[in-house]
């Protein structure tokens, strides 16, 4: 394995691993706090039990998120010193803001997890909302950095070189892609986690139809999915248009559009063949891409031929990942629409077995969409680490033998991932049956 490839693989894997815990750290506290609020309002013990159980599982997710995030902060330097040397001063401020957000998140998490009997229930619930708030804040601020890599801004360069002359820190934070990307990845976190939780508790309901604990959990998760998913579709559309404007090579790769053309079609599915510069097996909707991008069905869209060969991303993976994200999103949208309809018609949370099974089927797709979406963003930016400024190959460390840490970290993350799954399984299926909850009242 060559060193650049190993570094990319290790970085991608570490990020792909961390993001799962990151999104859980954003969405789970909100669900816990909502459950606790319901308990405070209604006195229904089941919701208190739910908040407690979720918080135990979340403790595990948080710890693994914290350590994998720490690893990332180091890996930025260990693997990409060229990038950090260049970008550090420009993007350091959002990172330090994020650092403060972590502090507050961890403080309130400590209070939430260990303070059940030490502070009043209201304050405890407030601590939960604060964890959720600072989770969202840290998840949003780190996106500013990634958005900056996609649409670098907030600095001037010495004429004729890329050397940084002056820095406008806040201009870098509020770079063009920040609002759209923050919205899309923030909503994506709630969507993905809500579906994952929904599926788990629908599985519980399939096993024990009247388990009040699983029912309460499924309702909260469904509520979150119902709010977040339609918004996520809208924000995806905005993101795609933004990419078209600011990162045209990425858009061309997402769509497998090889030739610059007026009235460009939208490609559904299909496999791009780079060597022959064509797609096989795709369904093309005439003029749809031009229309979606600009509102004008005949507008010209840049294809990959507008970029020199060495500046093109890997069309195959970017297109596939994009299709996968959109497909997952559509399935998720289908499920929430269906569930909302059944709930509205039946006046109660739908517990028909076929619906529960459908939810079970769809539940991992949010996580899949998140991973796929990140592949679009990161692979679609290649060969640049900072778009049009610095190439990935110029950012990598001179350290030889990078396959060693790469394999080692892969093994470590596989091991941690499997362990977390086993432990979460313990938590979910220790859920009290209805009887137990009734008795404990």
């Amino acid at each position, binding site marked *: 394995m060559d060193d650049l490839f190993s570094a990319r693989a290790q970085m991608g894997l570490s990020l792909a691993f961390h993001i799962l815990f990151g999104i859980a750290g954003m969405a789970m506290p909100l669900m816990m706090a909502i459950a606790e609020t319901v308990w405070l309002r209604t006195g229904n013990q089941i919701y208190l039990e739910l908040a407690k159980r979720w918080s135990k599982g979340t403790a595990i997710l948080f710890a693994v998120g914290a350590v994998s995030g720490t690893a990332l*902060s180091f890996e930025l330097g260990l693997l990409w010193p060229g990038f950090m040397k260049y970008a550090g001063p420009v993007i350091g401020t959002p990172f330090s803001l994020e650092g403060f957000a972590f502090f507050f998140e961890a403080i309130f998490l400590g209070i939430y997890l260990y303070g059940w009997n030490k502070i009043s229930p209201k304050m405890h619930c407030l601590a939960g909302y604060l964890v959720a708030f600072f989770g969202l804040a840290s998840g949003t601020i780190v996106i500013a950095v990634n958005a900056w890599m996609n649409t670098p801004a907030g600095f001037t360069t010495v004429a004729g070189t890329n050397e940084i002359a002056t820095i406008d820190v806040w201009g870098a934070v509020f770079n063009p892609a920040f609002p759209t990307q923050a919205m899309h990845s923030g909503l994506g976190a709630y969507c993905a986690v809500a579906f994952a939780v929904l599926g788990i508790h629908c599985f519980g309901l399939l096993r024990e139809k009247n388990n009040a604990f699983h029912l309460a959990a499924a309702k909260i998760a469904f509520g979150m999915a119902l709010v977040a998913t339609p918004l996520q579709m809208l924000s995806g559309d905005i993101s795609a248009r933004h990419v078209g404007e600011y990162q045209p090579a990425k858009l061309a790769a997402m769509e497998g559009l090889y030739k610059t053309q007026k009235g460009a079609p939208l490609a559904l599915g299909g496999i791009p063949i780079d060597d022959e510069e064509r797609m096989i097996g795709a369904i093309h909707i005439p003029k749809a891409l031009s229309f979606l991008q600009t509102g004008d069905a005949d507008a010209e869209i840049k294809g990959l031929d507008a970029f020199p060969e060495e500046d093109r991303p890997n069309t195959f993976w970017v297109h596939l990942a994009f299709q996968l994200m959109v497909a997952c999103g559509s399935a998720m949208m289908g499920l929430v629409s269906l569930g909302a309809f059944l709930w509205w018609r039946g006046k109660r949370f739908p517990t028909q077995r076929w619906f529960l099974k459908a939810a079970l089927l769809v539940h991992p797709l949010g996580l899949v969409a998140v991973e796929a979406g990140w592949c679009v963003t990161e692979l679609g930016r290649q060969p640049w680490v900072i778009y049009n400024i610095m190439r990935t190959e110029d950012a990598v460390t001179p350290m030889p033998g990078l396959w060693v840490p790469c394999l080692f970290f892969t093994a470590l993350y596989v091991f941690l991932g499997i362990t977390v799954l086993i432990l979460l399984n313990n938590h979910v299926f220790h859920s009290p049956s209805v009887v137990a909850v009734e008795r404990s009242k």
Partner: protein
Amino acid sequence: MIGVDLFWWIMGTGLIIYVMTGGADYGGGVWDLLARGKEQARERRMIEAAIGPIWEVNHIWVIFIIVTMFSVFPKAFAAICIALHIPISLVVVGMILRGACFTFRGYGLQPGATAKRWGMIFAWASLITPIFLGMTLAATSSGEIRLVDGEVTSGYFSGWLSPFAVCTGVLTLVIFSLTAAVYLLHEVEPDMVQRFRDRAFKAQIVVLVLLAIVYGLAHRDAPIFAEQLDNSALIWPLRFFIVLAVGAVFWSLKNKHDDLARMAVVAQVAGVVLGWGLAMDRYLVIPDLTIDNAGAHQETLEAMAPVFIAGAVLLVPALFMLFRVFKSKSKEA
């Protein structure tokens, strides 16, 4: 004036706080590893209860330092990450295993034997990580990491394998263990307190011996560092301060003044880190990188200073609240 010096002090303060708080969490793991006898399960539970609510917060100081470093001194960060890739990677692995396995043990809902295995990994990782951390810091002082035109030319094994570096690593470990033992005096059940006093006493002796050894070795393996230490204007007050603090630790442990012991240990740790900072004397990597040539941009400094001030103003009361909820003496352990 907002300048690089301010951030040198900010990083130093962060490091001191990390050693005092996060360091003790590693020390807790060391005592977990050394727990023996019939009572070991109970002892481990007490250590766990003490670390549980706060370790994630304490850990963030390390992120704080890293982030400040790469924002303000990017050239030094890049050089350190290249030259010390190996020990830093080992630190990272240790941090991952320590934090993850600690939580797996506490929250895993697994049978005792399995939980115990997580505990073993947690404890061993707590032992190894501080050693590599100390080796990494010592390497920046060694004078062996060299740069030419901003590129590291001294390879990947310079500075961190010398006896000086290894002893600094061990010193770091024992200091962490000492602070943990002293903090635990306030956390464990009454019948265990004397045991931890004895441990703290022994750890303090070892710290003293290692300080002397490291000081001696520095003259051989890190000459510039040692010279700057000896020539620093503050070296005598500092020596005096550290000796006083060490004496106070011994005295208060003997006479069961646990509050004083805690203060004295905190003072001692702060003094040692401060001494290291004095000896570094504005160097980030001796001899080629100082805070003046490590790539700081004035605009960054001016944007970050208000962020740090605002953050600190909010952070202090929040931290205070956290420690009050969990660390007030009146609470049931």
